[in-house]
């Protein structure tokens, strides 16, 4: 297994090199002045773009520019984002925890619901629960996340907004944003120090359970939106994989031995049925990255996705490129984690 992981680790820089090459290649579509924005760190430099074009050799051939860009990126200089009025790196540092919090919490329903419902559907083939699961899979897979997001807002924020505000002092209100205005004011005043910028963790560190709950209820609708597509996909694959496993000889043998049904289903069949789901988890990372852009935009959630969408509309090239680089990094790391999980669960790879 060690050799396997080393092999995968060695593949990582290749992928990263490819993506960065692609990014710089795409940048060549822009004029030197537009590209110069990627090297700007402050407002003062922004006023003197010609100097930057010469300094960074933006009129030089492609390979020279690539090396320059990589050198700057490696030093953490990704340019200045006009969308957030600060260096790209600072924005990424500040906003990454918000997006990570959203995406990581979404993994709970994606994996939990997907695997649970998929197993249940396979075990009760053609019964009511299976029919429901299949409808859920195909509709969940076809429903665009931006439509789902808006419908959720219309129902829970619009139609049920008034009743929820009155019920239990508004403890179950579902609203856009990350935290309530009152908490935002406290953060601005410095009464609520941000240690990790993960709101749920910070509120525990500060011993503020009211803020914890506040952040949690703001996460409900975005998490549903973000999880819908991926959980439908996982459910579907889990169902068919479980059905295939259940029809195999070793499962019949286990049954014939007289093992309890639950042991056969959950210990023998489900473990093997999980392998395709883990393969799919690599795709889940991709879906979550796509989904974060849409979800954060609709729910006004102050993460990287919304910043990226705003930057794209406002032609803020350094921000767009910085986000692309970060995405490449996350995809590479995400796939590595999936590979390692795969090796842990599949003995064919562990000993192969």
């Amino acid at each position: 297994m060690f050799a396997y992981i080393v092999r995968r680790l060695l593949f990582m820089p290749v992928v990263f090199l490819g993506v960065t090459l692609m990014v710089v290649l795409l940048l060549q579509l822009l004029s030197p002045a537009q590209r110069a924005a990627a090297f700007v760190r402050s407002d003062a430099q922004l006023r003197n773009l010609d100097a930057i074009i010469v300094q960074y050799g933006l009129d030089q051939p492609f390979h020279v520019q690539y090396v320059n860009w990589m050198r700057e990126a490696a030093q953490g200089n990704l340019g200045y984002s006009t969308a957030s009025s600060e260096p790209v790196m600072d924005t990424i540092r500040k906003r990454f925890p918000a997006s990570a919090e959203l995406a990581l919490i979404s993994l709970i329903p994606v994996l939990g619901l997907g695997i649970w419902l998929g197993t249940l559907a396979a075990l009760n083939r053609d019964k009511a629960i299976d029919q429901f699961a299949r409808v859920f899979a195909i509709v969940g897979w076809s429903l665009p996340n931006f439509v789902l997001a808006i419908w959720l807002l219309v129902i829970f924020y619009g139609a049920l907004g008034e009743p929820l505000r009155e019920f239990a002092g508004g403890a179950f209100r579902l609203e856009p944003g990350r935290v309530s205005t009152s908490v935002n004011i406290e953060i601005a005043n410095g009464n609520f120090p941000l240690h990790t910028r993960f709101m749920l963790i910070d509120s525990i560190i500060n011993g503020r359970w009211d803020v914890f709950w506040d952040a949690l209820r703001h996460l409900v609708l975005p998490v549903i939106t973000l999880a819908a597509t991926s959980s439908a996909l996982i459910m579907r694959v889990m169902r068919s994989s479980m059905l295939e496993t259940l029809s195999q000889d070793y499962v019949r043998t286990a049954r014939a031995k007289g093992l309890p049904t639950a042991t056969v289903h959950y210990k023998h069949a489900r473990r093997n049925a999980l392998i395709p789901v883990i393969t799919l988890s690599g795709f889940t990372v991709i879906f979550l990255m796509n989904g974060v852009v849409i979800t954060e935009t609709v729910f006004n959630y102050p993460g990287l996705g919304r910043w990226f969408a705003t930057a794209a509309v406002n032609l803020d090239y350094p921000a767009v490129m910085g986000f692309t680089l970060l995405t490449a990094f996350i995809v590479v790391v995400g796939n590595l984690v999936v590979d390692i999980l795969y090796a842990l669960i599949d003995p064919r790879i562990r000993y192969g």
Partner: protein
Amino acid sequence: MGLASHGHDLGSGGMQAPIGGPDRADTSWWQSKPVRRFRRNPLAIVGALIVFVFVIVATFAPQMSELGRTCLRDLGLTAVTASDVRDPTKAVFWRSIVAPPATCYTIPRASFSPIPEAPSESYRLGTTSGGYDIFYGLLWGSRTAFRIGLIVVSVSLLFGLLIGGLAGYFGGWIDDVLMRFTDMVIAFPSLVLAIVIVTLLGQTLTNVIVAIALVAWPNYARVIRSEILTVKELTYVESARALGGRHFRIFIQHVLPNTIASMIVVASLDMGSVVLTAAALSFLGLGPPVGYADWGQMVNFARDWILGPPGQPLAYWFTSFYPGITILVFVLGWNLLGDAFRDAFDPRNA
């Protein structure tokens, strides 16, 4: 009616002898195993019907909607002769279907008011923020959807055919390089990549199509490559090669026909996802200009009115409901159709 006869064929075909006569029943296209499996799958019929209805709507959008003033002008019509567009004996009927002027894709506005108007006689599904007619936008938006879908699918099919074909047929280092590149594009989140490309190229409908095609081809390349790897080793391809057949001819005559089944599956599933990505792009404001008949933009308009006026939270439900349900049903139709094709072609179901 086309719709009625279509339904009739689908419903009764399984029981009646095909037109070719009883002796040809086993060899006819209609009685072949994949087609029979397809016909007996109720979800396949639902999917086919949905897609069929959208094809009809997209084709006859000019006849089904009240055309705007500039659109009428560019068709050479006046308010008096506007009904000519519904008369199949007039040339303008066919022109409006085959090549309507670009101005027809601009949604007519009932007003410039940001407040939506409820469905009424003249605006059947109401108007959305900015006074845009929802009914018109959805009808003509289906033309936009088909245009994006068909262009992207055919372009990425050709590109995938080229890359996957080269990789599978020649193998070796060509295969390695091309497939690593394909893997890289697949591994990157498609929406993010499409956004980057549209941002760099400029925000127009053409660039949206280019961007989506650039992220959609790897699926085709992969499928074609794996099909070719299977077919390549078959004896008849080997003998064709032994006879001195040219690479290109062997590819066209022997290899390509074997990939058609998988191509149909990927293409129909892709029609849904391509339109979805396009809608997501224009939802974010990266699509065609404001006012262009396009579903994603219609959903974007609805964002202005998630909350109704005080006391009537659901007053503007139609602004988000109709565009949303249209996209959902369109994508659902293609997904059902794609799944049905996959099941029908799957030899395991034989």
